């Protein structure tokens, strides 16, 4: 087995002597006999590094990743290009291996990174205060709900159906605990129904939750929708896609009290869904209710500029049951990756990337809408993702297109039964014009084949039955 321990028999003898026992087993005598396992763990024997590598590589081989299948799947996590310097910097021991910066004198690296990250996210969202990150997007939404309850002393949430289904589900799970009522407002032509929203908000509403671009890719008029929240003294909470904040009006300029979301597109890999990070920004008024860590600037005894964890009395280690949130470990390394990526893109590059996404998305949307059997689910403006409806069973179409090495998109049907055979198609700067054209062709061929019940695809598919392996 691989060992990371060093104790030789000689070391052990010396240590046991110093302790005054004959064997390490004696140290375990404090465990009552009936509770001692008394047998080896039923796990395989440990292996050497090379063997472990082979095992993990074999498992990796059985995943159709974005190198095997061109990835048009989004739904909150996107196949962006993460520059090499992100890997180089986040793999440095000094960032990878330390603990949370509770001893600030020896954690200035981590604390300054947090400060820089907070600045960057504040700039992106247009709100003055940012924390140093939460777990990911959906749980950040749920944490925002908890904040809103504390701030308004109310218990009702009004949530647009355009908010990511995982966020809505997570909010519902948390609400069952902290005791909030969740009211959903539907979409009309791809956008949150304004009248329906205004009708749902009242003096009992703690917060209104919107997302822009919404789950169907549509850019919402957050400012207009938010008026209902303002009128009733409810907080306006807006989930957003960080990669679009170079070109879309940020929530902070649209009246949002809180802007948050899934940070993965910034500097983080897909990693089958995590780890990534959630960003969380707010108005000055909410600073004392913010969840998560916040780095603040200060000076040392000699007047040197430095950074510390600020406002720790919000947090669980001090305020315990009255803490603003229970979060302890968050996603510090992932936030570092985001900061490096944003520095690499830079002010101009970040804007240009946003524009690139909009142009390619517009092109993709046009190409796909022109395909026989593909229809747009809505015509609302989009930034980097859009929804279509197929005139053929979406799963079968996706299987056929996968055989051509393309993951065509996210099937909408499970979470949006009203869009059966719906598909969400996402664009990143890695999706070239040629790939978009190929997607259109592949969809056309697949839909035609399904309509004609044409010859089956190259690999065995058995409809809904789960089979093992890829090919």
């Amino acid at each position: 087995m691989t060992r990371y321990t060093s104790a030789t028999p000689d070391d052990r003898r010396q240590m046991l002597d110093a302790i005054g026992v004959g064997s390490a087993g004696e140290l375990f005598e404090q465990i009552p006999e009936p509770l001692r396992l008394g047998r080896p763990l039923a796990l395989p024997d440990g292996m050497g590094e090379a063997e472990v590598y082979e095992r993990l590589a074999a498992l990796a081989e059985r995943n159709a990743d974005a190198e095997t299948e061109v990835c048009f799947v989004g739904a909150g996590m996107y196949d962006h290009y993460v520059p090499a310097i992100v890997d180089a910097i986040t793999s440095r021991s000094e960032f990878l291996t330390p603990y949370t910066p509770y001893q600030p004198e020896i954690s200035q690296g981590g604390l300054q990174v947090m400060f820089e990250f907070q600045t960057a996210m504040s700039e992106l969202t247009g709100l003055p205060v940012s924390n140093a990150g939460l777990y990911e997007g959906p749980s950040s939404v749920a944490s925002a709900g908890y904040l809103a309850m504390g701030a308004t002393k109310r218990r009702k949430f009004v949530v647009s159906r355009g908010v990511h289904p995982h966020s809505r589900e997570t909010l519902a799970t948390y609400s069952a605990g902290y005791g909030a009522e969740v009211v959903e407002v539907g979409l009309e032509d791809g956008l949150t129904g304004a009248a329906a929203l205004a009708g749902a908000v009242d003096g009992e509403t703690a917060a209104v939750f919107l997302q822009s671009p919404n789950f169907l890719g549509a850019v919402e008029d957050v400012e207009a929708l938010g008026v209902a929240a303002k009128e009733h003294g409810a907080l306006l909470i807006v989930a957003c896609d960080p990669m679009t904040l170079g070109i879309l009006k940020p929530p902070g300029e649209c009246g949002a009290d809180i802007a948050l979301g899934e940070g993965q597109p910034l500097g983080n890999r897909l990693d089958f869904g995590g780890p990534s990070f959630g960003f969380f920004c707010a108005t000055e008024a909410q600073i004392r209710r913010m969840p998560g860590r916040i780095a603040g600037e200060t000076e040392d005894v000699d007047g040197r500029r430095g950074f510390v964890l600020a406002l720790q009395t919000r947090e669980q280690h001090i305020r315990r049951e009255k803490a603003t949130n229970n979060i302890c470990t968050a996603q510090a390394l992932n936030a570092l990756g985001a900061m490096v990526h944003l520095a690499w893109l830079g002010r101009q590059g970040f804007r240009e990337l946003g524009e690139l996404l909009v142009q390619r998305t517009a092109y993709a949307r046009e190409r796909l809408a022109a395909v026989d059997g593909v229809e747009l689910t809505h015509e609302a403006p989009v930034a980097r993702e859009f929804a279509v409806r197929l005139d053929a069973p979406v799963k079968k179409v996706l299987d056929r297109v996968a055989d051509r090495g393309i993951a065509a998109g996210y099937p909408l049907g499970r979470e949006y039964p009203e869009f059966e055979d719906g598909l969400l198609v996402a664009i990143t700067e890695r999706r070239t014009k040629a790939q978009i054209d190929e997607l259109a062709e592949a969809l056309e061929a697949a839909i035609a084949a399904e309509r004609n019940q044409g010859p089956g695809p190259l690999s065995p598919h058995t409809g809904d039955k789960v089979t093992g392996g890829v090919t």
Partner: protein
Amino acid sequence: MQAEKARTIFEKSKPGRRAAALPAAEVPEKPLTDLIPSNLLRAEPPRLPEIAEPEIVRHYNRLSRRNFDLDSGFYPLGSCTMKHNPRLNERVAALPGHARLHPAQDPRRAQGALELMWLLQESLGEICGLPHVSLQPSAGSHGELAGLLLTRAYHADRGEERTKVLAPDTSHGTNPASVTMAGYEVVKVATNEQGGVEMDDLRAKLAENEGEVACLMLTNPNTLGVFDENIAEIAKLIHEAGGTLYYDGANLNAVMGHSRPGDMGFDIVHVNLHKSFSQPHGGGGPGAGPIAVSDRIEPYLPRPQVVRREGANGDGPSFDLDFERPKSIGRLRGFQGNFGVFVRSYAYILSLGGDGLSEASETAVLNANYLKARLAEGRAGERLPIAFDRHCMHEFVLSGKPMKRDLGLATLDLAKRLLDFGFHPPTVYFPLLVDEALMVEPTETETKESLDAFADAIEQILAEAEDTPDLARNAPYTTPVRRLDEVKATRQPVVRQQFG
């Protein structure tokens, strides 16, 4: 390094500099305002830095050197389990098959990932002695919230409404914080001198709150690093009262392969993969807090669950995400969880195997007891007595009360002076049960020499303090910055760069 003034990346920005070269659009371009109404567009781009690649790299490299880290030195933080982070784990996590896999990929084309998750689940189930595992929670406190929501669902399913959760006054802050977030009220249970649950108080609190107690949250070994010998009785009492017993897995490193929380009577356990299972701490995350539960709690587990299905017609088994869970509490987060962390933890478990995990715990306990024995000698023995004098498990707590009384040195001062000696200090001022507490957890990956060097440093600092107590009181001297004005940071918070 002290002479180097801290400058943020924004302060190194100069208009016109850039690192990224982006691809050309390639597609026919339209005016932006044709595609998105101008009232929805941003007027000015965010003020991100304008800086070229060499300067970015230099900035973060230099910044990294203002950190002390585990790869560089001893980090005996109690309850944090700062064990070595194997680099193999980074290599396998970076394999494109794992790293570039979209979470919404069709499960039939993500079999490697799902099988890995299932194997990790099985391994954790065996280690914890509870068969049903969800990998969804992103951290220990997320697992705690999950456990409490599971408890709520369990009682609701039985038509019971309970409002209170018991937790020791010495519990980690995340425990009571999670209780409130889950909609319960905290009732504190007293801790006895051995750091375990005060049994009479437990019985009293159960009696006072009959029918109201949903759960008791504990860790074992307890916060003094001692195994609570009453655990079987505690489990019996809480179960008789109709509540669930929750295990905070922060101290699991003491007992892997030697005792299992499921066997101790716990219903729900969270495991910190960034503690016992070598996931790097990353300066504050990422981690993961999977939960293992008993049969009666299983129906309520988060959705989706990773499941294994037997193959038909001679096919091998396959793995899937099961969404058909009618009694599930629902989702706790997006997608499936911190998969990158699962890859590393699974690689760690494969590397050590059952034997290795057992050995890891044994060595962790050996190292802790050895360091405790060293610190019972000389000046440390006098000024930093052990809070509870018997064999500890993987960590122990010293009290700085005599040091404060006799030398005028607070535990904080000792901690700051240790920084000058190249050590990360132990956890300070926790648990509150002990005056001027110092909680030490060496972990199994330290050499005997490392432990000796630490003990020697403590001895030296205490000797220093006999002559010149001011030395420690104004420490540290050699770190990138010295003691920082935390009052100023909190009174007038400056939490982002201000641009002129």
